[in-house]
Protein backbone atom coordinates (compact mmCIF):
# COMPACT_ATOMS: atom_id res chain seq x y z
CA UNK A 1 0.00 0.00 0.00
CA UNK A 2 1.24 3.49 -0.84
CA UNK A 3 2.06 5.95 1.90
CA UNK A 4 -0.24 8.94 2.22
CA UNK A 5 2.43 11.39 1.11
CA UNK A 6 2.86 9.47 -2.12
CA UNK A 7 -0.79 9.97 -3.02
CA UNK A 8 -1.05 13.75 -2.61
CA UNK A 9 1.11 16.51 -4.01
CA UNK A 10 2.94 18.48 -1.33
CA UNK A 11 1.95 21.60 -3.25
CA UNK A 12 -1.73 20.72 -2.91
CA UNK A 13 -1.34 20.33 0.86
CA UNK A 14 0.25 23.79 0.91
CA UNK A 15 -2.63 25.18 -1.16
CA UNK A 16 -5.16 23.79 1.30
CA UNK A 17 -3.16 25.13 4.25
CA UNK A 18 -3.19 28.59 2.66
CA UNK A 19 -6.93 28.33 2.02
CA UNK A 20 -7.48 27.45 5.69
CA UNK A 21 -5.78 30.71 6.72
CA UNK A 22 -8.76 32.57 5.23
CA UNK A 23 -11.44 30.43 6.91
CA UNK A 24 -13.87 32.63 8.81
CA UNK A 25 -12.73 35.87 7.16
CA UNK A 26 -16.12 36.55 5.52
CA UNK A 27 -16.51 39.49 3.17
CA UNK A 28 -13.03 40.99 3.04
CA UNK A 29 -10.25 41.31 0.48
CA UNK A 30 -8.16 38.14 0.57
CA UNK A 31 -4.82 39.37 -0.76
CA UNK A 32 -2.40 36.45 -1.05
CA UNK A 33 0.80 37.40 -2.87
CA UNK A 34 2.62 34.69 -4.82
CA UNK A 35 1.78 31.53 -6.72
CA UNK A 36 0.63 29.03 -4.08
CA UNK A 37 -0.90 31.80 -1.92
CA UNK A 38 -3.04 32.97 -4.87
CA UNK A 39 -4.17 29.41 -5.61
CA UNK A 40 -4.98 28.82 -1.94
CA UNK A 41 -7.01 32.00 -1.71
CA UNK A 42 -8.96 31.07 -4.82
CA UNK A 43 -9.64 27.63 -3.32
CA UNK A 44 -10.98 29.17 -0.10
CA UNK A 45 -13.35 31.39 -2.06
CA UNK A 46 -14.47 28.61 -4.39
CA UNK A 47 -15.37 26.35 -1.44
CA UNK A 48 -15.95 27.57 2.11
CA UNK A 49 -15.46 31.40 1.99
CA UNK A 50 -17.58 32.53 -0.96
CA UNK A 51 -17.72 36.18 0.12
CA UNK A 52 -13.97 36.83 -0.15
CA UNK A 53 -12.92 39.40 -2.75
CA UNK A 54 -9.71 38.81 -4.72
CA UNK A 55 -7.52 40.60 -7.25
CA UNK A 56 -6.28 39.60 -10.68
CA UNK A 57 -2.76 40.26 -9.33
CA UNK A 58 -2.94 43.79 -10.65
CA UNK A 59 -5.64 46.48 -10.67
CA UNK A 60 -8.95 44.63 -10.69
CA UNK A 61 -11.02 42.57 -8.29
CA UNK A 62 -12.30 39.59 -10.23
CA UNK A 63 -14.87 36.87 -9.60
CA UNK A 64 -13.07 34.03 -11.41
CA UNK A 65 -11.89 30.86 -9.70
CA UNK A 66 -8.98 30.51 -12.14
CA UNK A 67 -5.90 31.94 -10.44
CA UNK A 68 -3.77 33.25 -13.31
CA UNK A 69 -5.31 33.00 -16.78
CA UNK A 70 -8.76 33.93 -18.06
CA UNK A 71 -9.23 33.24 -21.74
CA UNK A 72 -11.74 35.80 -22.94
CA UNK A 73 -10.98 38.01 -19.93
CA UNK A 74 -11.91 37.78 -16.25
CA UNK A 75 -15.22 38.71 -14.66
CA UNK A 76 -14.40 42.11 -13.20
CA UNK A 77 -16.12 43.14 -9.96
CA UNK A 78 -14.25 46.33 -9.16
CA UNK A 79 -11.56 48.74 -10.34
CA UNK A 80 -8.76 48.36 -7.81
CA UNK A 81 -5.64 50.36 -8.77
CA UNK A 82 -2.68 50.41 -6.39
CA UNK A 83 -3.80 53.65 -4.83
CA UNK A 84 -7.17 52.17 -3.94
CA UNK A 85 -5.48 49.18 -2.33
CA UNK A 86 -4.38 51.44 0.52
CA UNK A 87 -8.03 52.23 1.20
CA UNK A 88 -8.51 48.53 1.93
CA UNK A 89 -5.29 48.28 3.90
CA UNK A 90 -6.12 51.20 6.15
CA UNK A 91 -9.83 50.39 6.35
CA UNK A 92 -8.91 46.94 7.61
CA UNK A 93 -11.06 44.89 5.25
CA UNK A 94 -8.13 42.79 4.18
CA UNK A 95 -6.10 39.70 5.04
CA UNK A 96 -2.75 39.74 3.29
CA UNK A 97 -0.38 36.82 2.83
CA UNK A 98 3.13 38.04 2.10
CA UNK A 99 6.44 36.30 1.51
CA UNK A 100 9.28 36.51 4.01
CA UNK A 101 13.02 36.35 3.44
CA UNK A 102 13.29 36.07 7.22
CA UNK A 103 10.60 35.48 9.84
CA UNK A 104 11.20 35.00 13.57
CA UNK A 105 9.38 33.32 16.47
CA UNK A 106 6.99 36.25 16.96
CA UNK A 107 6.29 36.68 13.27
CA UNK A 108 8.57 39.67 12.66
CA UNK A 109 9.31 39.65 8.93
CA UNK A 110 12.12 41.00 6.76
CA UNK A 111 11.99 41.63 3.00
CA UNK A 112 14.22 44.72 2.93
CA UNK A 113 17.85 43.74 3.37
CA UNK A 114 20.09 41.04 4.85
CA UNK A 115 22.87 42.13 7.19
CA UNK A 116 23.41 45.60 8.61
CA UNK A 117 20.69 47.77 7.07
CA UNK A 118 22.98 50.78 6.63
CA UNK A 119 25.33 48.79 4.38
CA UNK A 120 23.54 45.54 3.63
CA UNK A 121 25.22 42.33 2.62
CA UNK A 122 22.24 41.60 0.39
CA UNK A 123 19.79 44.28 -0.63
CA UNK A 124 16.29 42.93 -1.26
CA UNK A 125 13.09 44.67 -2.37
CA UNK A 126 12.82 47.33 0.31
CA UNK A 127 10.17 47.70 3.02
CA UNK A 128 7.36 47.51 0.43
CA UNK A 129 4.01 47.56 2.25
CA UNK A 130 4.97 45.36 5.20
CA UNK A 131 4.88 47.96 8.01
CA UNK A 132 1.48 49.24 6.92
CA UNK A 133 0.04 45.80 6.28
CA UNK A 134 0.93 44.39 9.67
CA UNK A 135 -0.22 47.35 11.78
CA UNK A 136 -3.56 47.54 9.94
CA UNK A 137 -4.60 44.10 8.69
CA UNK A 138 -4.58 40.41 9.45
CA UNK A 139 -1.32 39.09 8.00
CA UNK A 140 -0.07 35.59 7.23
CA UNK A 141 3.17 34.49 5.59
CA UNK A 142 4.12 31.98 2.92
CA UNK A 143 7.55 30.36 3.09
CA UNK A 144 8.24 27.94 0.21
CA UNK A 145 11.76 27.15 1.47
CA UNK A 146 11.56 26.45 5.22
CA UNK A 147 15.13 26.57 6.59
CA UNK A 148 16.92 27.95 9.65
CA UNK A 149 18.04 30.98 7.62
CA UNK A 150 14.43 31.87 6.78
CA UNK A 151 12.49 30.79 9.87
CA UNK A 152 15.21 32.28 11.99
CA UNK A 153 16.26 33.34 15.48
CA UNK A 154 16.26 37.06 14.66
CA UNK A 155 15.42 39.05 11.54
CA UNK A 156 17.96 41.67 10.44
CA UNK A 157 15.36 44.34 9.69
CA UNK A 158 11.79 44.36 10.99
CA UNK A 159 9.55 45.27 8.05
CA UNK A 160 6.37 43.44 9.07
CA UNK A 161 5.95 43.68 12.83
CA UNK A 162 5.46 40.56 14.95
CA UNK A 163 3.50 39.92 18.12
CA UNK A 164 6.27 41.11 20.50
CA UNK A 165 6.68 44.43 18.68
CA UNK A 166 2.89 44.89 18.62
CA UNK A 167 2.62 44.14 22.35
CA UNK A 168 5.32 46.73 23.07
CA UNK A 169 3.23 49.36 21.25
CA UNK A 170 0.36 48.83 23.68
CA UNK A 171 -3.25 47.84 23.10
CA UNK A 172 -4.35 51.03 21.35
CA UNK A 173 -1.68 51.19 18.63
CA UNK A 174 -1.76 47.44 18.06
CA UNK A 175 -5.52 46.94 18.04
CA UNK A 176 -5.67 45.97 14.37
CA UNK A 177 -2.55 43.79 14.41
CA UNK A 178 -2.81 40.03 13.95
CA UNK A 179 -0.20 37.67 12.53
CA UNK A 180 -2.30 34.57 11.94
CA UNK A 181 -0.29 31.80 10.32
CA UNK A 182 2.91 30.92 8.55
CA UNK A 183 2.46 28.26 5.90
CA UNK A 184 5.67 26.60 4.72
CA UNK A 185 6.61 23.77 2.38
CA UNK A 186 6.96 21.57 5.49
CA UNK A 187 4.26 22.57 7.92
CA UNK A 188 1.76 25.09 9.25
CA UNK A 189 2.80 27.41 12.08
CA UNK A 190 0.62 29.67 14.22
CA UNK A 191 0.95 31.91 17.27
CA UNK A 192 -1.78 30.43 19.44
CA UNK A 193 0.30 30.39 22.62
CA UNK A 194 0.01 32.58 25.75
CA UNK A 195 2.77 34.97 24.63
CA UNK A 196 2.24 34.46 20.88
CA UNK A 197 5.42 32.49 20.30
CA UNK A 198 5.37 30.50 17.11
CA UNK A 199 3.84 27.06 17.49
CA UNK A 200 3.87 24.04 15.23
CA UNK A 201 0.23 23.65 14.20
CA UNK A 202 0.50 20.72 11.80
CA UNK A 203 3.04 18.88 9.68
CA UNK A 204 2.53 18.05 6.03
CA UNK A 205 2.31 14.36 5.07
CA UNK A 206 5.76 12.78 4.91
CA UNK A 207 7.33 15.42 7.20
CA UNK A 208 8.35 14.61 10.77
CA UNK A 209 8.33 16.99 13.71
CA UNK A 210 12.11 16.58 13.98
CA UNK A 211 12.54 17.65 10.37
CA UNK A 212 10.63 20.83 11.14
CA UNK A 213 12.72 21.40 14.28
CA UNK A 214 15.93 20.97 12.28
CA UNK A 215 14.71 23.39 9.62
CA UNK A 216 13.87 26.08 12.17
CA UNK A 217 16.41 28.51 13.63
CA UNK A 218 14.88 28.65 17.14
CA UNK A 219 12.98 26.43 19.58
CA UNK A 220 9.45 26.11 18.27
CA UNK A 221 6.57 25.50 20.64
CA UNK A 222 5.67 21.90 19.83
CA UNK A 223 2.51 20.40 21.35
CA UNK A 224 2.57 16.79 22.57
CA UNK A 225 0.41 15.72 19.67
CA UNK A 226 1.10 17.45 16.37
CA UNK A 227 -1.63 16.69 13.85
CA UNK A 228 -1.05 16.17 10.16
CA UNK A 229 -1.98 19.08 7.89
CA UNK A 230 -5.44 18.78 6.37
CA UNK A 231 -5.42 16.89 3.10
CA UNK A 232 -7.22 18.13 0.01
CA UNK A 233 -10.54 16.39 -0.61
CA UNK A 234 -11.07 14.75 -4.01
CA UNK A 235 -13.36 17.65 -4.92
CA UNK A 236 -10.66 20.15 -3.99
CA UNK A 237 -8.03 18.31 -6.01
CA UNK A 238 -10.37 18.31 -9.01
CA UNK A 239 -11.06 22.03 -8.61
CA UNK A 240 -7.37 22.91 -8.30
CA UNK A 241 -6.38 20.68 -11.23
CA UNK A 242 -9.09 21.61 -13.66
CA UNK A 243 -10.00 25.21 -12.82
CA UNK A 244 -7.77 27.11 -10.41
CA UNK A 245 -4.30 26.04 -11.58
CA UNK A 246 -4.67 23.83 -14.67
CA UNK A 247 -1.08 24.66 -15.75
CA UNK A 248 0.30 23.25 -12.51
CA UNK A 249 2.32 26.33 -11.51
CA UNK A 250 2.05 25.22 -7.88
CA UNK A 251 4.00 22.02 -8.62
CA UNK A 252 6.90 24.10 -9.88
CA UNK A 253 6.94 26.23 -6.74
CA UNK A 254 6.81 23.24 -4.37
CA UNK A 255 7.86 20.05 -6.15
CA UNK A 256 7.04 16.73 -4.55
CA UNK A 257 9.80 15.63 -2.17
Amino acid at each position, binding site marked *: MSELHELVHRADVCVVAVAECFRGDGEILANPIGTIPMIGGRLARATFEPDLAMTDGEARLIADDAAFAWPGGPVVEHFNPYRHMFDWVWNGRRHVMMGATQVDRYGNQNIAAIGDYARPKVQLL*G*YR*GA*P*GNTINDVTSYWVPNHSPAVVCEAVDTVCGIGWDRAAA*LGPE*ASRYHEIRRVVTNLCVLDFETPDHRMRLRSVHPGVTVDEVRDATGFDLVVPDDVPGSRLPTPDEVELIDSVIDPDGLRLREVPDP
Partner: protein
Amino acid sequence: MTAPRNKRCTEEEAVAELRSGMTIGFGGWGSRRKPMSAVRAILRSDLTDLTVVSWGGPDVGLLCAAGKVKRLLYAFVSLDSIPLEPHFRAARQSGAIEDEPYDEGMFLLGLQAAAWRVPFLPTRVGLGSDLLRDNPRLRMVTSPYDDGEELVAAPAIPMDAAFVHMNRSDARGNGQYLGPDPYFDDLFLGAAEKRFLSTERIVPTEQLSEEGPPQSLVISRLLVDGVIEAPNGAHFTSCAPDYDRDEAFQKQYAASAKSPEAWDEFRTSWLDLSEADYQAKVRSL
Protein backbone atom coordinates in the same frame (compact mmCIF):
# COMPACT_ATOMS: atom_id res chain seq x y z
CA MET B 1 -6.15 86.97 -28.94
CA THR B 2 -3.60 85.60 -26.56
CA ALA B 3 -2.22 82.20 -27.45
CA PRO B 4 -2.13 79.46 -24.81
CA ARG B 5 1.24 78.48 -23.34
CA ASN B 6 3.42 76.52 -25.70
CA LYS B 7 4.52 73.50 -23.69
CA ARG B 8 5.95 71.32 -26.43
CA CYS B 9 9.55 70.42 -25.73
CA THR B 10 12.14 67.69 -26.13
CA GLU B 11 13.74 65.54 -23.44
CA GLU B 12 16.91 67.62 -23.84
CA GLU B 13 15.04 70.87 -23.29
CA ALA B 14 13.38 69.45 -20.18
CA VAL B 15 16.68 68.21 -18.78
CA ALA B 16 18.25 71.64 -19.46
CA GLU B 17 15.83 72.95 -16.80
CA LEU B 18 17.37 70.67 -14.17
CA ARG B 19 20.42 71.26 -11.99
CA SER B 20 22.76 68.96 -10.12
CA GLY B 21 21.63 68.34 -6.55
CA MET B 22 17.93 68.57 -7.38
CA THR B 23 15.21 66.25 -6.10
CA ILE B 24 13.58 64.57 -9.09
CA GLY B 25 10.57 62.25 -9.16
CA PHE B 26 9.66 59.62 -11.74
CA GLY B 27 6.13 58.30 -12.21
CA GLY B 28 5.06 54.79 -13.15
CA TRP B 29 5.53 51.73 -10.95
CA GLY B 30 8.31 49.12 -10.92
CA SER B 31 9.00 48.32 -14.56
CA ARG B 32 5.69 49.78 -15.78
CA ARG B 33 5.00 52.99 -17.72
CA LYS B 34 8.24 54.66 -16.67
CA PRO B 35 9.34 57.94 -18.33
CA MET B 36 12.40 56.18 -19.69
CA SER B 37 13.20 58.61 -22.53
CA ALA B 38 13.58 61.33 -19.89
CA VAL B 39 15.73 59.00 -17.78
CA ARG B 40 17.94 58.35 -20.82
CA ALA B 41 18.28 62.10 -21.40
CA ILE B 42 19.38 62.55 -17.79
CA LEU B 43 21.91 59.75 -18.29
CA ARG B 44 23.34 61.67 -21.28
CA SER B 45 23.59 64.89 -19.26
CA ASP B 46 26.26 65.96 -16.80
CA LEU B 47 23.73 66.19 -13.95
CA THR B 48 24.88 64.60 -10.72
CA ASP B 49 24.11 64.34 -6.96
CA LEU B 50 20.41 63.82 -7.63
CA THR B 51 17.87 62.89 -4.98
CA VAL B 52 15.55 60.43 -6.72
CA VAL B 53 11.91 59.78 -5.72
CA SER B 54 10.31 56.73 -7.30
CA TRP B 55 8.17 53.60 -7.09
CA GLY B 56 11.42 52.17 -8.22
CA GLY B 57 12.18 50.23 -11.35
CA PRO B 58 14.90 50.49 -14.01
CA ASP B 59 14.76 54.29 -13.72
CA VAL B 60 16.39 53.92 -10.32
CA GLY B 61 18.76 51.17 -11.43
CA LEU B 62 20.02 53.07 -14.48
CA LEU B 63 20.55 56.31 -12.55
CA CYS B 64 22.38 54.39 -9.80
CA ALA B 65 24.57 52.54 -12.28
CA ALA B 66 25.50 55.82 -13.98
CA GLY B 67 26.47 57.40 -10.66
CA LYS B 68 23.77 60.07 -10.84
CA VAL B 69 22.13 59.30 -7.50
CA LYS B 70 23.11 60.84 -4.19
CA ARG B 71 20.01 59.84 -2.26
CA LEU B 72 17.04 57.59 -2.94
CA LEU B 73 13.50 57.90 -1.54
CA TYR B 74 11.54 54.70 -2.25
CA ALA B 75 9.42 51.89 -0.86
CA PHE B 76 10.75 49.20 -3.21
CA VAL B 77 12.82 48.80 -6.35
CA SER B 78 11.85 45.94 -8.67
CA LEU B 79 11.83 44.98 -12.33
CA ASP B 80 8.60 42.97 -11.76
CA SER B 81 9.46 39.95 -13.93
CA ILE B 82 12.93 40.13 -12.37
CA PRO B 83 12.00 40.75 -8.72
CA LEU B 84 15.26 42.33 -7.53
CA GLU B 85 16.83 45.30 -9.37
CA PRO B 86 20.53 44.40 -9.73
CA HIS B 87 21.96 47.91 -10.21
CA PHE B 88 20.03 49.25 -7.22
CA ARG B 89 21.25 46.31 -5.14
CA ALA B 90 24.84 46.96 -6.18
CA ALA B 91 24.53 50.63 -5.23
CA ARG B 92 23.11 49.78 -1.81
CA GLN B 93 25.61 47.01 -1.12
CA SER B 94 28.58 49.18 -2.05
CA GLY B 95 27.25 52.10 -0.03
CA ALA B 96 27.20 54.32 -3.13
CA ILE B 97 23.83 55.93 -2.35
CA GLU B 98 22.12 57.42 0.68
CA ASP B 99 19.03 55.42 1.54
CA GLU B 100 15.71 56.89 2.64
CA PRO B 101 13.21 54.01 2.88
CA TYR B 102 9.44 54.25 3.10
CA ASP B 103 6.50 51.91 3.38
CA GLU B 104 4.43 52.01 0.16
CA GLY B 105 1.41 53.61 1.83
CA MET B 106 3.58 56.07 3.71
CA PHE B 107 5.21 57.01 0.39
CA LEU B 108 1.75 57.74 -1.03
CA LEU B 109 1.01 59.97 1.97
CA GLY B 110 4.30 61.82 1.49
CA LEU B 111 3.48 62.54 -2.15
CA GLN B 112 -0.07 63.51 -1.23
CA ALA B 113 1.10 65.80 1.58
CA ALA B 114 3.46 67.60 -0.78
CA ALA B 115 0.72 67.90 -3.42
CA TRP B 116 -1.64 69.30 -0.77
CA ARG B 117 1.10 71.60 0.61
CA VAL B 118 0.95 70.31 4.18
CA PRO B 119 4.09 69.21 6.07
CA PHE B 120 2.89 65.69 6.90
CA LEU B 121 -0.06 63.33 7.01
CA PRO B 122 -0.71 61.16 10.06
CA THR B 123 -0.73 57.39 9.79
CA ARG B 124 -0.49 54.21 11.81
CA VAL B 125 1.94 52.89 9.17
CA GLY B 126 5.45 52.35 10.47
CA LEU B 127 4.61 51.88 14.16
CA GLY B 128 6.74 49.14 15.68
CA SER B 129 8.80 48.60 12.53
CA ASP B 130 12.46 49.38 11.85
CA LEU B 131 11.43 52.12 9.40
CA LEU B 132 11.57 54.49 12.35
CA ARG B 133 15.20 53.37 12.85
CA ASP B 134 16.23 53.39 9.19
CA ASN B 135 14.54 56.60 8.03
CA PRO B 136 15.67 59.27 10.49
CA ARG B 137 13.42 61.81 8.80
CA LEU B 138 10.35 60.14 10.32
CA ARG B 139 8.86 61.67 13.43
CA MET B 140 5.84 60.97 15.59
CA VAL B 141 2.77 63.15 16.09
CA THR B 142 0.15 63.11 18.84
CA SER B 143 -3.49 63.45 17.91
CA PRO B 144 -4.78 66.81 19.24
CA TYR B 145 -8.21 65.22 19.78
CA ASP B 146 -9.48 63.39 22.84
CA ASP B 147 -8.04 60.04 21.70
CA GLY B 148 -4.50 61.43 21.99
CA GLU B 149 -3.25 58.67 19.72
CA GLU B 150 0.45 58.51 18.86
CA LEU B 151 0.88 58.29 15.11
CA VAL B 152 3.65 58.52 12.55
CA ALA B 153 3.86 61.86 10.71
CA ALA B 154 4.54 60.81 7.11
CA PRO B 155 6.62 63.75 5.85
CA ALA B 156 5.76 65.62 2.67
CA ILE B 157 8.00 64.67 -0.27
CA PRO B 158 8.25 67.82 -2.39
CA MET B 159 10.31 67.66 -5.58
CA ASP B 160 12.14 70.16 -7.76
CA ALA B 161 11.00 68.34 -10.89
CA ALA B 162 8.95 65.32 -11.90
CA PHE B 163 8.53 63.23 -15.05
CA VAL B 164 5.62 60.96 -15.95
CA HIS B 165 4.79 59.02 -19.12
CA MET B 166 1.23 58.74 -20.48
CA ASN B 167 -0.33 56.79 -23.32
CA ARG B 168 -1.85 59.93 -24.86
CA SER B 169 -1.99 63.64 -24.21
CA ASP B 170 -2.82 66.82 -26.00
CA ALA B 171 -0.19 69.50 -26.56
CA ARG B 172 -1.35 71.37 -23.47
CA GLY B 173 -0.63 68.48 -21.10
CA ASN B 174 -4.01 66.85 -20.59
CA GLY B 175 -2.72 63.32 -20.09
CA GLN B 176 -4.50 60.02 -20.57
CA TYR B 177 -3.62 56.53 -19.39
CA LEU B 178 -5.13 53.58 -21.27
CA GLY B 179 -3.51 50.75 -19.31
CA PRO B 180 -4.51 48.89 -16.15
CA ASP B 181 -3.53 51.41 -13.48
CA PRO B 182 -3.01 55.18 -13.28
CA TYR B 183 -0.38 54.64 -10.54
CA PHE B 184 0.45 57.88 -8.68
CA ASP B 185 1.57 60.08 -11.56
CA ASP B 186 -0.75 62.98 -10.75
CA LEU B 187 0.72 63.19 -7.26
CA PHE B 188 4.28 63.42 -8.58
CA LEU B 189 3.25 66.35 -10.76
CA GLY B 190 1.29 67.92 -7.92
CA ALA B 191 4.30 67.67 -5.63
CA ALA B 192 6.88 69.10 -8.07
CA GLU B 193 7.98 72.59 -9.15
CA LYS B 194 8.88 71.71 -12.75
CA ARG B 195 6.48 69.19 -14.25
CA PHE B 196 7.06 67.19 -17.41
CA LEU B 197 4.76 64.78 -19.17
CA SER B 198 6.00 62.56 -21.96
CA THR B 199 3.49 60.69 -24.07
CA GLU B 200 3.30 58.00 -26.72
CA ARG B 201 1.32 60.31 -28.96
CA ILE B 202 0.13 63.90 -28.86
CA VAL B 203 -3.41 64.12 -30.21
CA PRO B 204 -5.84 67.04 -30.60
CA THR B 205 -7.79 67.65 -27.40
CA GLU B 206 -11.07 66.66 -29.05
CA GLN B 207 -9.59 63.25 -29.93
CA LEU B 208 -8.84 62.32 -26.30
CA SER B 209 -12.43 61.27 -25.70
CA GLU B 210 -12.25 58.92 -28.66
CA GLU B 211 -9.20 57.23 -27.16
CA GLY B 212 -10.77 56.45 -23.77
CA PRO B 213 -13.47 57.43 -21.26
CA PRO B 214 -13.30 60.64 -19.18
CA GLN B 215 -11.95 58.73 -16.18
CA SER B 216 -8.84 57.82 -18.22
CA LEU B 217 -7.95 61.55 -18.34
CA VAL B 218 -6.06 61.51 -15.04
CA ILE B 219 -3.55 64.30 -15.66
CA SER B 220 -4.78 67.87 -16.04
CA ARG B 221 -2.81 70.51 -17.93
CA LEU B 222 -2.88 72.48 -14.65
CA LEU B 223 -0.18 70.05 -13.50
CA VAL B 224 2.08 70.21 -16.57
CA ASP B 225 4.77 72.64 -17.75
CA GLY B 226 6.36 70.62 -20.55
CA VAL B 227 4.91 68.07 -22.98
CA ILE B 228 7.29 65.67 -24.72
CA GLU B 229 6.14 63.45 -27.57
CA ALA B 230 8.05 60.20 -27.00
CA PRO B 231 6.82 57.22 -29.02
CA ASN B 232 8.01 54.02 -27.34
CA GLY B 233 9.33 56.38 -24.67
CA ALA B 234 8.66 53.96 -21.81
CA HIS B 235 10.79 51.25 -23.44
CA PHE B 236 11.83 48.78 -22.06
CA THR B 237 9.16 49.06 -19.38
CA SER B 238 5.54 48.23 -20.22
CA CYS B 239 3.16 50.81 -21.62
CA ALA B 240 0.00 48.72 -22.04
CA PRO B 241 -2.02 48.66 -24.23
CA ASP B 242 0.47 50.32 -26.62
CA TYR B 243 3.19 47.76 -25.86
CA ASP B 244 4.28 45.27 -23.25
CA ARG B 245 7.55 45.20 -21.38
CA ASP B 246 10.51 44.21 -23.60
CA GLU B 247 11.51 41.22 -21.48
CA ALA B 248 14.48 40.24 -23.65
CA PHE B 249 15.87 43.76 -23.43
CA GLN B 250 15.23 43.90 -19.69
CA LYS B 251 17.18 40.66 -19.23
CA GLN B 252 20.07 42.17 -21.14
CA TYR B 253 19.84 45.28 -18.96
CA ALA B 254 19.81 43.21 -15.77
CA ALA B 255 22.80 41.18 -16.96
CA SER B 256 24.76 44.42 -17.39
CA ALA B 257 25.10 44.53 -13.59
CA LYS B 258 27.32 41.45 -13.63
CA SER B 259 30.59 43.35 -14.10
CA PRO B 260 31.93 46.83 -14.87
CA GLU B 261 32.75 45.55 -18.36
CA ALA B 262 29.17 44.38 -18.92
CA TRP B 263 27.87 47.75 -17.80
CA ASP B 264 30.32 49.59 -20.07
CA GLU B 265 29.15 47.51 -22.98
CA PHE B 266 25.48 48.14 -22.23
CA ARG B 267 26.17 51.82 -21.79
CA THR B 268 28.04 52.11 -25.05
CA SER B 269 25.45 50.11 -26.94
CA TRP B 270 22.29 51.67 -25.54
CA LEU B 271 22.89 54.84 -23.57
CA ASP B 272 25.65 56.82 -25.28
CA LEU B 273 23.36 57.64 -28.17
CA SER B 274 20.48 59.98 -28.89
CA GLU B 275 16.89 58.97 -28.17
CA ALA B 276 16.23 58.81 -31.93
CA ASP B 277 19.20 56.51 -32.46
CA TYR B 278 18.17 54.41 -29.45
CA GLN B 279 14.67 53.96 -30.83
CA ALA B 280 15.97 53.16 -34.31
CA LYS B 281 18.27 50.54 -32.80
CA VAL B 282 15.42 49.04 -30.74
CA ARG B 283 13.29 48.80 -33.90
CA SER B 284 16.08 46.91 -35.65
CA LEU B 285 16.29 44.25 -32.89
